[in-house]
């Protein structure tokens, strides 16, 4: 299937993504969703999270700056999402480096996230392998984390997306590498976190989670590549990236190199 099919559908459907995310990237994440054609909602109230997850098109659970109250809201959102079959995405930010969020992220796994998105260190740590992560920066390679991704996919029925120089999309029995030069995304805060939200929007629009994830990473990485090539530095990159997200065409997305691993 062409990568752009899900992208076109997403732009047509404008899925509502309920983001329980961190305070650093909230604004950037909402703008990424808007630029790509989706609709963001950023709220953390425990009492309404379950209800909201039932009507949203997708839910993002991002553990960047959790609070006790936000974790409670996340639990309720996951319950609601599973009750209504709303896809939900887990972004285990800095898991492994920090104990409490690691316990919390692992405790959500039996609720079977539709997709788990993180860097190599986070995916290794979430699956229970040794990792060398130091907070949000990955110090492990995507290739080294693929077995951990497969392990999570088999155990919890999730699709796993590992971000890096080439992104790996993994399910129980296949892995696809998406090749774009998205390095510039590490120069502004929220590059990875917003990708989780963006992938949530694509999963909501797609028939199949794996294909939607591949398509999301192709589109997102290509927009970053183009934005960087016409930016003076990280400041103008962030602005140009939002523009490029909206300007990438279906045929551009189809041109992104991706391969079975």
């Amino acid at each position: 299937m062409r990568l752009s099919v899900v992208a076109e559908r997403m732009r047509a459907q404008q899925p509502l993504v309920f983001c329980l995310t961190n305070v650093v990237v909230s604004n950037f994440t909402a703008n990424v969703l808007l630029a790509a054609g989706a609709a963001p909602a950023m709220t953390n109230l425990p009492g309404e999270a379950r209800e909201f997850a039932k009507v949203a098109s997708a839910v993002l659970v991002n553990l960047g700056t959790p609070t006790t109250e936000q974790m409670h809201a996340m639990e309720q959102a996951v319950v609601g999402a599973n009750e209504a079959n709303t896809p939900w995405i887990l972004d285990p930010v800095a898991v492994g480096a920090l104990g409490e969020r690691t316990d919390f992220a692992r405790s959500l796994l039996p609720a079977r996230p539709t997709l788990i998105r993180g860097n190599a260190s986070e995916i290794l740590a979430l699956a229970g392998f040794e990792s060398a992560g130091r907070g949000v920066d990955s110090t492990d390679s995507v290739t080294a984390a693929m077995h951990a991704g497969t392990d999570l996919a088999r155990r919890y029925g999730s699709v796993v997306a590992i971000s890096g120089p080439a992104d790996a999309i993994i399910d129980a029995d296949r892995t696809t590498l998406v090749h774009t030069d998205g390095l510039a995304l590490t120069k502004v805060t929220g590059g990875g976190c917003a990708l989780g939200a963006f992938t949530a929007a694509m999963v909501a629009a797609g028939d199949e989670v794996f294909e939607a994830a591949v398509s999301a990473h192709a589109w997102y990485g290509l927009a970053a590549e183009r934005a960087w090539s016409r930016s003076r530095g990280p400041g103008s990159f962030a602005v140009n990236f939002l523009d490029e997200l909206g300007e990438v065409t279906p045929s551009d997305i189809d041109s992104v190199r991706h391969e079975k691993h």
Partner: protein
Amino acid sequence: MRELGPYLVANTASCTPHTTLDVIAQAVAGGIQWVQLRAKEETAREFYELAIAAAELTEGKAELLINDRIDVYLAARAAGAAVTGIHIGQKDLPVRVARTLIGEGIIGLSASSDDQLAQAARDAQAIDYLGVGAIRATPTKKDHPTPIGIDGFLRAAGRVDLPCVAIGALTAQDASALRQGGAAGMAVVRAICAAQSPETATRELVDVWESAR
């Protein structure tokens, strides 16, 4: 049997990164006295083998109850394993039938609605304790009953003359309120199964429960 105290539900899917057996071993080392083995996706053979291995860890130290599968309990018992009872829900075999099947052995029953509690009171002779919840909505169990909160639990527990164990997204922070309110025990899944150190998590839970009087 009036008080059970902290109670581990060792749900196989929730045990990450530690294995289920490792979680049980650590919880026993941390002082847990009640363990329920819950394996929703395993085959009968897998569950049976897990039960036998778990019983070696709990023997003489903690009760080991088998969730839902009376057949697995009977088979493990027949094989000489120190399984000590079952915990069943409203969709499993009727509790009086279960009592006939297992004879001695502990029987715990999940009950949450008023009707279920009233029925449990009528079947009280067949039941050793009730699991009552969910206190809060929990992502761990897909078909959990409507959350009733700690107040709702304490009201329910006051209506039946059976020991009531609270369950549903509980943490050590809930121990005082529950014990002081008359709960016979508190069951946790994630608070121990998903902890970096299940042993430390158990010890903390046991300590707060003990000091909550």
